[in-house]
């Protein structure tokens, strides 16, 4: 914006998507109230919260699964109202859900291009461009730092982390500028979670905006630029990376003083 303060590398001024005081209620139940967040290019926004904190409601608004009730939602600085995930995809916002939308018995490259297959020829001779799909899939996976033995193997034989990587690489290839990851590390072991965190870092380094939804501060802290804490549908705070330690993050997530009380309660009491 101003010449005196150049933007940080990767972040290009206007947020890719921005929520300003958005909220959503179902009947008389308020699921989300007055939440603000910005997703910048080349940055990772971590959305943290316990079960029922409002994470899913926020994701469904960001991903276009349901429109926001109150507040303002902006894409590239323009107020927008997303009515479907397809519309969100057209804006370059892709969501990778926990089921990953893969077909386990189909090969890696067929899954990569599922629904958007490349073809050659016309009429009855129109056929899959297998060679090109294989080479593109291989190159795109390599750009994400994924080396697979064999693109022909069914995707169901890959590990959870690898499948997650394929799903992210696929979203990026098909034009995503913002990738929303819904609890990508929840069901994974330490090593597999590491693979996913590396993917997130790579996507960020390629200039994408990443929304990383998790309830694990130890997964969020190493990759996050900004941490948005949610609790009972409300914003508990937004912190930049330098402003908070992983211990404070953990404490805030668990409800601050509640955790202190619990620690005292569960501790050994003499007598």
């Amino acid at each position, binding site marked *: 914006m101003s010449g005196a303060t150049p933007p940080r590398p990767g972040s290009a001024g206007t947020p890719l998507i921005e929520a300003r005081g958005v909220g959503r209620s179902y009947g008389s139940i308020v699921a989300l109230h007055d939440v603000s967040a910005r997703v910048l290019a080349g940055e990772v926004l971590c959305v943290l919260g316990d079960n029922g904190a409002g994470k899913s409601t926020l994701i469904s608004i960001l991903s276009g699964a349901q429109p926001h009730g109150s507040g303002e939602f902006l894409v590239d600085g323009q107020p927008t109202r997303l009515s479907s995930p397809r519309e969100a995809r057209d804006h370059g916002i892709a969501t990778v859900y926990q*089921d990953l*939308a893969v077909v386990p018995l*189909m090969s890696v490259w067929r899954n990569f291009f*599922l629904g958007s297959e490349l073809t050659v020829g016309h009429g009855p001779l129109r056929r899959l461009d297998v060679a090109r799909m294989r080479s593109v899939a291989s190159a795109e996976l390599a750009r994400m730092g994924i080396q697979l*033995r064999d693109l022909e193997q069914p995707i169901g*034989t890959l590990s959870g982390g690898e499948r997650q990587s394929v799903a992210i690489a696929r979203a990026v290839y098909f034009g995503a500028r913002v990738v929303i990851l819904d609890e990508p590390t929840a069901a994974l072991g330490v090593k597999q979670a590491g693979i996913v965190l590396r993917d997130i870092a790579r996507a960020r380094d390629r200039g994408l905006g990443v929304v990383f939804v998790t309830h694990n501060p130890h997964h969020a802290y190493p990759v996050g630029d900004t941490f948005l804490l949610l609790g009972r549908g409300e914003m508990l705070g937004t912190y930049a990376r330098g402003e908070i330690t992983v211990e404070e993050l953990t404490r805030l997530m668990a409800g601050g003083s509640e955790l202190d009380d619990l620690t005292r309660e569960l501790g050994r009491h003499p007598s």
Partner: protein
Amino acid sequence: MTRAAPAVSETAAPLGPVAAVVPAATHPFVAVLRRPEIGALAAALMIFVLFSSITTAFLTPAGIGTWLYSSSLFGIMAVAVALLMIGGEFDLSAGAMTGTTGLLVGVLTTQWQVNIWLAMALSLAVALGLGAINGLLVVTTGLPSFIVTLGTFFILQGINLAVTKLITGSVAIQGMSAVDGFDTGKILFGSRVSLLGVEVKTSVFWWLAVTLIATWVLLRTRPGNWIFAAGGAPSSARQMGVPVARTKISLFMTTAGAAWLVGMLQLFDVSTVQATSGIGQEFVYIICAVVGGCLLTGGYGSAVGAALGALIYGMTLQGIVFAQWDNNWLKAFLGAMLLGAVLVNLYVRKRLGSRS
């Protein structure tokens, strides 16, 4: 990756860390063993050797012609049913439909003097319509296709018999050979070609053509990709923009179209149609597809496998006759084949989908 096996041990040490990141590509031999039709190919060879060695008639030109013809009629249907099963659905009305299509042409031409080509076109239209109804009922209601097509199966079985009796007064239609144009139709659907001394009926060429086209569609076209996806994980397929409903309806119509083809092949071969034609064969088609590597749960299988499954069935059907065994052994054999195939498929499913 590795051109020769010994090279691996020589380079293993320097390549150690790299090899850990990029393990060797799957060996071609392993890739072949992973194909769904490999079990059916082995079984077909065994059945062929068995009946060739214990009967003298099996390898005579006449014998070969007989089991090839038998296999071809089952094979055309088995391939279509396999596509449908890969797409995650069943069609129990497929057998009765082979009767319906033949009977319709028979009634139209012999009773009402409709031009034979027009009658065949009408019959095809009716078949495709029935397939579309099956498909629409399945995709709009979400009911299992097993129940929906069980319903249409009984409706067709009833109509085939009742309407044929009502119109002709008997349970068969005869005198087709006197109809104008029958001889021309016979060239396409009911003639023989002599190949190396074996009289091969045209249905065998139709069978080969159907198998080749189905394989091409499955492995090398977008609709083929959608068939695997629609059967393997419908909700994922929908999320990725695959037209699942349209794919499934097209598959039911394809099965119905195949039933029409088999109806025509039988009609022009013998020039009579029985009202009970095709009844009870719907399960044989499914068994052939399963023996050929199709999973009952959808998403996996092959057209070549289903064609081989039909070849196994055809060879056994005629082989038992040539060997002069009690015909009832066929049923026992069929059941054993099915169980064996399902157990193999279960193993495949566990191995490929264990982490899903």
